């Protein structure tokens, strides 16, 4: 239900042209307004509080579609922020996460490469275990200059922002932020896989569609395996629950597995496409650029493998299969 609604909205309003325009600095106002009107911000709020009453798995399916449409706005983080911060109202507009805030020696707050930093109006960040609401307007912003990237580093004065009444440790918000990127990655990978399949069926070389060549078939088969693995890992995270959020270890697996797959999926899609795939005017790059950026965002597989490794060390008395089972239990 939620997925159908967002799919149709994104199909109409979040077109590849719209995404390109916003990436290049165009105003997201029209797209933004369409999403705000639709009420998705309150997707996770209970129905009796005027929300969508959606479950975390519903949320995952919605975010996957945001990924598949390369939505240039932090809809997922905005929805999730409202689920995390229940005790007080959050401002309108787009909210993104910065769960690894660094407090500098001079007291200023630094958030490196904040996803959607260029299109968000507020940041929910964690400085240690203290949750803060930080207006982007108050920050010094440094765009990274990567073509089309919406991430930006932000720096605030020592007294910036307001404390939030959130009692979760930073790791929990880190896990949630990572799970969101896992869902975005899964959605983008499905889209990339579709594009590669479509191209393999259409494009002819040596007198037949390239999808008839065994080498291409094997590449697409392996790609399908990794897209499927990533999708199920991302989805499974939202079927776990710990204090109202997806469980930490499950988020870790979701982000680790999707990030590892992202590299293979992006490179295979480009290998299937050949040179056309790296052109700006062909849509593939809208999604593969994100696969690379989102792989790094909120911790690459290296970060999350280390986090899971710490769990393995701590639980080194358990059967490994039991440990694997407990992740998604």
């Amino acid at each position: 239900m939620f997925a159908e609604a967002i799919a149709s909205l994104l199909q109409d309003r979040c077109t590849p042209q719209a995404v390109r325009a916003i990436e290049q600095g165009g105003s997201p106002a029209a797209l933004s307004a369409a999403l705000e009107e639709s009420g998705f911000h309150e997707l996770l709020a209970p129905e009796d509080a005027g929300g969508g009453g959606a479950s975390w798995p519903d949320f995952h399916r919605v975010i996957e579609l945001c990924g598949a449409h390369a939505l240039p706005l932090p809809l997922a983080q905005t929805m999730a922020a409202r689920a995390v911060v229940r005790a007080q109202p959050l401002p309108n507009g787009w909210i993104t996460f910065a769960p690894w805030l660094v407090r500098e020696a001079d007291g200023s707050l630094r958030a490196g490469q904040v996803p959607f930093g260029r299109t968000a109006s507020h940041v929910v960040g964690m400085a240690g275990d203290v949750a803060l609401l930080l207006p982007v307007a108050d920050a010094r912003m440094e765009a990274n200059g990567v073509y089309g990237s919406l991430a930006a580093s932000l720096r605030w004065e020592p007294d910036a922002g307001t404390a939030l009444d959130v009692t979760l440790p930073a790791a929990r918000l880190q896990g949630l932020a990572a799970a969101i990127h896992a869902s975005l990655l899964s959605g983008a990978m499905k889209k990339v896989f579709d594009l590669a399949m479509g191209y393999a069926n259409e494009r002819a070389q040596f007198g037949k569609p390239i999808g008839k060549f065994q080498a291409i078939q094997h590449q697409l088969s392996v790609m399908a395996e990794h897209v499927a693995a990533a999708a199920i890992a991302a989805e499974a995270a939202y079927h776990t629950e710990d204090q109202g959020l997806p469980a930490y270890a499950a988020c870790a697996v979701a982000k680790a597995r999707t990030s590892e797959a992202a590299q293979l999926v992006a490179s295979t899609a480009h290998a299937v496409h050949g040179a056309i795939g790296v052109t700006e005017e062909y849509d593939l790059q809208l999604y593969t650029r994100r696969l690379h950026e989102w792989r790094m965002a909120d911790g690459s597989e290296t970060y999350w493998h280390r986090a899971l490794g710490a769990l393995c060390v701590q639980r080194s008395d358990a059967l490994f299969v039991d440990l694997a089972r407990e992740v998604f239990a």
Partner: protein
Amino acid sequence: MAELLDRLQRAELPAAAQAFRAEVKDFIAREMPPLGADVRARSWMGFDAAFSRKLAARGWVGVTLPKAYGGAELDAFRRFVLVEELLAVGAPVAAHWIADRQSGPLINKFGSEAQKQSYLPRICRAEVFFCIGMSEPNSGSDLASIGTRAVRTERGWVLNGRKIWTTNADKCDYSIALVRTSGLPADRQAGLSQFIVDLRLPGVTVRPIVDLSGDAHFSEMFFDDVLLAGDALIGQEGQGWQQVNAELAFERSGPERLYSSVVLVDAWIRWMRRNGQIEQHAETLGRLLAHLATLRQMSIAVTAKLAAGESPLVEAALVKELGTTYEQEIPSIVEAALGASPGQPADPELLRAAAYLSHMAPTFSLRGGTREILRGMIARGLGLR
């Protein structure tokens, strides 16, 4: 989105299957023989008739077979749990494994009532053990080129030829052999039939094949004018190829495609913990955990389709290819890690487990279809063929 991927939906084990897990864990705690990691690494090559009989006594052999024949009629989720728990500890399940998973279901599906009554109850009691008889010295993955031949005579079928790569044939009672009953090898899949061959019949010779681990799990079976009764034919004459493909489908699903090397991971973790090395390999462990947790979700998704009465062949092939890659990379990863501390090499038991799996890992992608065949199945499932 490609339809194939839409078909592989996350699912979860129902509560009843979760409760069943406690029963299985309890059984294993009581009945599992005390074996070293190097022996447990053999798991479903490990023949232990006594352990199989204990499982049978508990009602857990012939898990898919009807209760009328002594079977357990476990649902797909319980079967998943049973297999998962057995393989997680490397239980020696080889004795009954083929009968339980392939031969029994085949007889149940294609056999006559008399055949069912003759074999199924004995299978479920772990009184008789079965092996496969498909590969031939010159067939490889080209099963259709089979040359072993059964000729119908007045006295019954006369069987001549040889089969190879049969697991534990020297310890089994019966083999279900795919043989030619008409035509020539050049006719390929036409004219093939399946027979239940009593391995104690005159003219049957079994030669164990020693492998690179010093084990003799594989063997070669020679048939010299073996006289088979008419009721040795299983299913329809000339339908052997179709029946075998149904049989391979049974083999291609389930958690046995994820866990072949997991005993080694546990042994390695124990050793690292004892030797203060676990921190330096934590990232590697974390990656193995992320992959296993994910593969397990995929395997449960396939199981849910089986439970729903579907035949998720392509989905199973997809999970199997990933799972086999995982099973194969574990010994390689452990080898590299053990060699990271030349001043503190692994103890012999761990080394033997690592060596066994390193040496045998190449065969993981031969069991039930090579990589090329699996990728071809996936490509077909994607509509590329």
